[in-house]
């Protein structure tokens, strides 16, 4: 029941944050949640020993699905947008997963990257969607309840928090259960898993699907926060950012992606504030330091304290 306690504590903390903090912090928290959800999806995939350099594909699909609802169909409901983002991404992941689940290692990484860049190319070529300029989106209701301007982002943050906590709890259950253990089995020795009568292909496929849907949810959440979508969401640097955050946090904990996403956003903001000419290099050095001194991510710090306590 520790997980439930953590979930409730996080939810309370985020709700308090949504109600009390200044607008810019509400926005940062939303981006942090959005990225955290995507990276948590990446963690699910990493359990099977696979790294995707193309989560931007589903992040972008989620963002565009939400934005197109508002832009093309004039649906301005945030809850519908979030669900549509996750559903659209899951649909594409269900199709592409059929192919990708057959690949491993660098081949999987490169193929996933290739698919995200195909979507990027398509979006850049589509003048109707604003090409590289993208377009704005507006959400004005939540489950049909109209929101006053100014409070909408606070409501979206609470909604995002609920979605993120539910997803995190589900992933927690997944890791504890049959599927989660099978995934680590696939990572460690695929042949043995098949001899035991389980299908590694199916394990990878399901985890890929879950990761895709989560990236879609994250994309829709980010689109709601930013109020604008553009093809950069599917670009490889966006996908790279997710891998960066995953490495920063480490893969041991459900909370790590969210903490790492917060640190990443804060790091980038501080770096671009105090070193506007060197902020990319500051991020790069942070990455190098993590890989050299904490190869299992920042979460090892928390683990060490726990063990010494």
């Amino acid at each position, binding site marked *: 029941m520790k997980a439930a*306690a*953590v979930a409730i*504590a*996080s939810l309370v*903390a985020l709700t308090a*944050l949504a109600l009390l*903090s*200044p*607008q*810019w*912090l509400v*926005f*940062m928290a939303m*981006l942090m949640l959005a990225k955290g959800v995507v990276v948590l999806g990446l963690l699910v995939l990493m359990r099977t020993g696979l790294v995707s350099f193309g989560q931007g594909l589903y992040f972008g699909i989620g963002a565009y699905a939400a934005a197109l609802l508002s832009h093309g169909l004039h649906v301005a409901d945030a809850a519908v947008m979030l669900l549509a983002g996750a559903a659209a991404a899951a649909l594409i992941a269900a199709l592409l997963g059929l192919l990708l689940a057959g690949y491993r290692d660098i081949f999987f990484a490169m193929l996933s990257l290739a698919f995200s860049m195909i979507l990027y190319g398509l979006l*850049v*070529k589509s*003048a109707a969607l*604003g*090409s*590289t*300029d*993208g*377009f*704005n989106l*507006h959400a004005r209701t939540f489950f049909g309840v109209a929101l006053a*301007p100014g409070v909408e982002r606070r409501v979206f943050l609470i909604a995002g928090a609920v979605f993120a906590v539910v997803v995190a709890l589900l992933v927690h259950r997944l890791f504890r259960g049959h599927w989660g253990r099978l995934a680590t089995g696939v990572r460690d020795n695929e042949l043995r898993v098949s001899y035991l009568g389980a299908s590694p292909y199916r394990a990878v496929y399901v985890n890929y699907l879950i990761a895709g849907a989560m990236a879609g949810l994250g994309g829709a959440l*980010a689109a709601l926060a*930013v*109020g*604008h979508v*553009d093809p*950069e*969401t599917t*670009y490889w*640097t*966006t996908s790279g950012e997710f891998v960066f955050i995953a490495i920063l946090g480490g893969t041991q904990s459900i*909370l790590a992606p969210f*903490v790492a996403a*917060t*640190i990443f*956003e*804060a790091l*980038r*903001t*501080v770096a*671009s*504030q105090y070193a*506007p*000419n060197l*902020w*990319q290099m500051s991020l790069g050095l942070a990455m190098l330091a993590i890989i050299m001194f904490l190869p299992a991510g920042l979460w090892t710090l*928390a683990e060490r*304290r*726990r063990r010494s*306590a």
Partner: protein
Amino acid sequence: MRPSSLRAVLAAFGLLLAMPASLAQQPIKVGIVTFLSGPAAGPFGIPARNAAELTAELLNAGTVPAPYTQKGFGGTPIELVIFDEAGGPQTQVAEYRNLVPRVDIVIGYISSGDCLAIAPVAEEQNKLTILFDCGTPRIFEDASYKYVFRTGPTGTMDNVSVALYLVKRTPNVKSIAGINQNYAWGQDSWADFENAMQTLKPGIEVKTSQMPKLFAGQFSAEITTLLGSGAEVIHSSMWGGDLEGLVVQGAPRGLFEKHKVVLSAGEPAINRLGTRIPDGTILGARGPFGPFAPDTDLARWLKTAYQGRYHIPPNYASFKMTQAILGVKAAYEKAKSSGNEAPDQDKIIAALENLTFEGPGGPVKMALGKGHQATMDAAVGTTKVENGQLKIVDIERYSADKVNPPDGVKSEAWIKSGLKK
């Protein structure tokens, strides 16, 4: 959650909260956002930042010519807070929200995608935000804003003016072709040019439109297609490394001899390419900037001061940045003249709406987008190497109302429906 990790999370949030502690209100703080890294930094971002630093310093010293002789903004010194525009619209929206509590005014944004994403956020945050360079007319054509202004002209007039120039210089032109970068800027520029040519010369033949990938750098295949197309005119809105690549790879193969080449945004390249740009190339500067600037005290001041400090002439990005700062100064001082106290933001906004002010490129009229979007005269010229120096000759000027749509009319529709006043 264990207390220790909970504490870590809270500490992280505390850190975030503590960051943008608003500083003392003494000088007027101006946030400057321009590319400091990436491909757009060299041709636009750095020249714009240099111009911002130079202009702020000389304004504070009170050495800018009339009508800007007063120190700072209405006697109060200005202080710049400079940010990098790299990272895409999502990053920029995050950085903009962090910037807002720390500054009084934001001036920035070169990428149209960033401008489109920032404008609604500026409105939500009630922060006076001046877009200085981005080109897309969509910003004020698809929405209207109170807090957002753009002191540079839109991309519409770039391609309308080169089309007018072309038709005047070569009245019998029968066919055109294009090579533009495949992203919003290239697509929009080509569409504007093609539509303007169709309007001016109905039935003109479009031989081919090449759309290489942005930052491709290598254009051998496209140049071959263009050389074989038989088009009289080749239009390109390329910039930066791609433009240099096109000139360096196209010139030896006779692209510029066999065809009339139009570089609608070619001006920033002349400082780097110089005499390597073949004679007879038609060049635009996205307004009366750089070598196209009218001979005024203000233009001479910017050129001399900039050249003196950075040892290179200011290009159009530099002109537009200085223009944006001077525009805010003009509005600030107009708002202040009615009282002695520092004007609040609403007064500055009211003063800037529909304002006409003098920029280093000539008069700027905030004439479109309900008084929030600038129009300026356009200028187009032809390159010619004289005594080993690149010169711009045969400069034609077009008055602002001839190359911009009337307020409330969308650019695309205006070009297609005959470029009427």
